[in-house]
C-alpha cells in the first residue's frame, strides 16, 4: 500500500500524468470553443460514452479480436522466419553469402510499398493483409538478429570449441544465447512496425478490424468512434510491447545481477 502510494507520488509519474492531462485539456478546450462542430470534434465525455457504447454493442470486441488475430499470425510468421534466417545469415558464412544480398535489398523498402503488388497478386482477402504484416515484422527482426550474431564475443566461441563443441552446437548454445538481447530489440521494433502495417492493411477493404473501424467511422463522420479505435490501437500496441519486453527480460535474466541480501 505504502509502496503504491510512493510510486504514484514520484515526480516522474506526477509530471507525466500532468503532461498527458494537459494535452487532453487542450483538446477539450478546442472542442468546446464556440463554432466547433461537436460531431467532428467530440468532447472527451462523448468519447467516453462512445467507448462504453462500442463495448456494449460488441463491435469493439469483434474488431479488436479480428485485428489481434491478424497481427499475431503475421507477427509469429514474420518474426519466426526473420529470427531463423537472420541467425543463419549472421553466423554461417555461406548462409550469409546467400541471404545478405536479399536482406540488404529489402532493407530500404517500407513494407507498405508492397501493398499494391500484394493486392494485384493475391487479392484483397485475409492472406494479403497477413502477408503485409509479415513483411513489416520481418525486416527489423531479421536485421537485428543478424547483427546480434555478428557481435558474438570470440572468447565464448573459442572456449566452446576447446571444450569439444561442434560448429552446430556452438551456433545453438553459444551464438544464439549471446545474441538474444539483439533478438529482443528486433522483436520489440517488430511489434510497432507490425501494428503500423496492420492498420494500413485494414484500410484496404477489410470487413473488420480496428483499422477498418476507424476508416469506416471516418467516412460517416463518426469522429468519436475513430478516436475510440485509435485509443484501443494504442493500448493494444503498448500491451504487446510489454509482453515482448517481459518475455525478453525473462529470457535474459542471467544478465541481471541478483545477489542475495
Amino acid at each position, binding site marked *: 500500500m505504502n509502496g503504491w502510494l510512493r510510486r504514484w507520488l514520484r515526480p516522474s509519474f506526477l509530471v507525466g500524468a500532468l503532461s498527458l492531462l494537459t494535452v487532453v485539456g487542450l483538446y477539450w478546450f478546442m472542442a468546446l470553443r464556440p463554432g466547433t462542430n461537436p460531431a467532428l470534434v467530440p468532447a472527451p465525455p462523448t468519447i467516453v460514452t462512445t467507448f462504453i457504447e462500442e463495448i456494449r454493442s460488441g463491435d469493439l470486441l469483434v474488431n479488436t479480436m479480428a485485428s489481434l488475430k491478424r497481427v499475431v499470425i503475421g507477427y509469429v510468421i514474420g518474426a519466426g522466419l526473420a529470427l531463423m534466417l537472420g541467425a543463419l545469415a549472421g553466423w554461417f558464412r555461406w548462409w550469409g553469402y546467400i541471404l545478405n544480398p536479399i536482406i540488404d535489398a529489402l532493407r530500404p523498402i517500407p513494407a507498405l510499398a508492397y501493398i499494391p503488388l500484394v493486392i494485384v497478386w493475391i487479392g484483397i482477402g485475409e492472406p494479403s493483409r497477413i502477408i503485409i504484416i509479415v513483411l513489416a515484422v520481418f525486416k527489423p527482426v531479421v536485421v537485428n538478429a543478424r547483427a546480434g550474431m555478428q557481435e558474438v564475443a570470440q*572468447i*565464448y566461441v*573459442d*572456449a*566452446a*570449441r*576447446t*571444450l*569439444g*563443441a*561442434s560448429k552446430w*552446437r556452438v551456433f545453438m*548454445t*553459444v551464438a544464439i*544465447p*549471446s545474441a*538474444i538481447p539483439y533478438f529482443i530489440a528486433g522483436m520489440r521494433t517488430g511489434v510497432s512496425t507490425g501494428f503500423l502495417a496492420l492498420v494500413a492493411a485494414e484500410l484496404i477493404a477489410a470487413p473488420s478490424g480496428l483499422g477498418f473501424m476507424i476508416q469506416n467511422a471516418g467516412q460517416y463522420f463518426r469522429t468519436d468512434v475513430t478516436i475510440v479505435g485509435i485509443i484501443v490501437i494504442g493500448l493494444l500496441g503498448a500491451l504487446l510491447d510489454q509482453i515482448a519486453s517481459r518475455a525478453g527480460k525473462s529470457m*535474459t535474466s*542471467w*544478465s*541481471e*545481477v*541478483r*545477489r542475495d541480501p
Partner: protein
Amino acid sequence: MIAPTEMRPAKLGIRHLTHRFMIGTPPAPLTVLQDIDLDIARGEFVCLIGESGCGKSTLLRMMAGLLTPSEGQVLHDGVAVRGINHKIGFVFQQDAVFPWLTVEQNVEYGPKSRGVPRAERQQLVAQWCESVGLSAFRKAYPRQLSGGMRKRVDLARAYANSPDVLLMDEPFAALDVQTKGVMQEAVLQLWANSGKTVVFVTHDLDEAVFLSDLVVVLSSRPGRVHSLVRSPLARPRNEATRVSDEFAAAKRALWTELQAARQQPAVQPA
C-alpha cells in the same frame, strides 16, 4: 638445457615452429615466434614467461590448435595438432565462463558436447564443483559470482572435460593479489590431484616461481626460447614457500634470466 629422456616421453612437442602475422598497411610480415623447439614432459607444470609481445600467448594458442603456425608443428603425444582438440583444455585470460548458463551447466558443457551420458556428467559436475569449492553455488549464474569464483568455474569447466593437457593463458592476471594467491594454490591442488600436464603463460615472476617445475624464458621480437629454468623448490608448496629464502633465490635467478633474454640481440629472419 633439459632434454627429454626416454623415461618421460614428451606430452607436447614443438618442432621448428615459426609464426608471422601480417600487420600494417601495406601488410608486411612480422615474425612473432622464431624457430621454437620445446618438449613438455607428461605431468609437468610448465610456465612460459617473457616480456609482453614475446608471443607466449600466441604459442599457447597454437598448442591448443586455435591458431596454425606459419611453419613447423605442435605434437601432442607425437601426433601433429591440426585444429582444435578437446583433449587439450584451455583457460583464457578473459572471463570466458558462459554468462547465460549456471555454474553447473558451465561445468557440464564440455562433457555434454562430447556426448557423455547424463549420469556420468552429473558425477563429473559434482566432483569438479566440489574440487574448486563451488558446491554451494551450482545453481548460481556467473554474474552473481566474484571474479575469483568465476575463474574457479572456468577451471572446473576445463578439468571436467577430462583433458590430457591444460593450457592456461594468464588466467589470474585480472585478479587482486590475495585472490590471485588463493587461486594459484587452487590450481596447484588441481594439478597435484589430477596429474595432468599444465602449460601456464604468465608475466608474473612470483607466479612462475611458485607454480612451476620448469620455466621457459622467451626472448622478444621475435619470440625465441632463451633458456629453460628448473625449479629448485620442493613440493607441496604453500604460503610458507612464498616467504622462504629458496623462493627469493629462485626468483632472483629467474629475474637474471629474464634480463639476459631482453638483451639477447634480435636475429632477423632470413
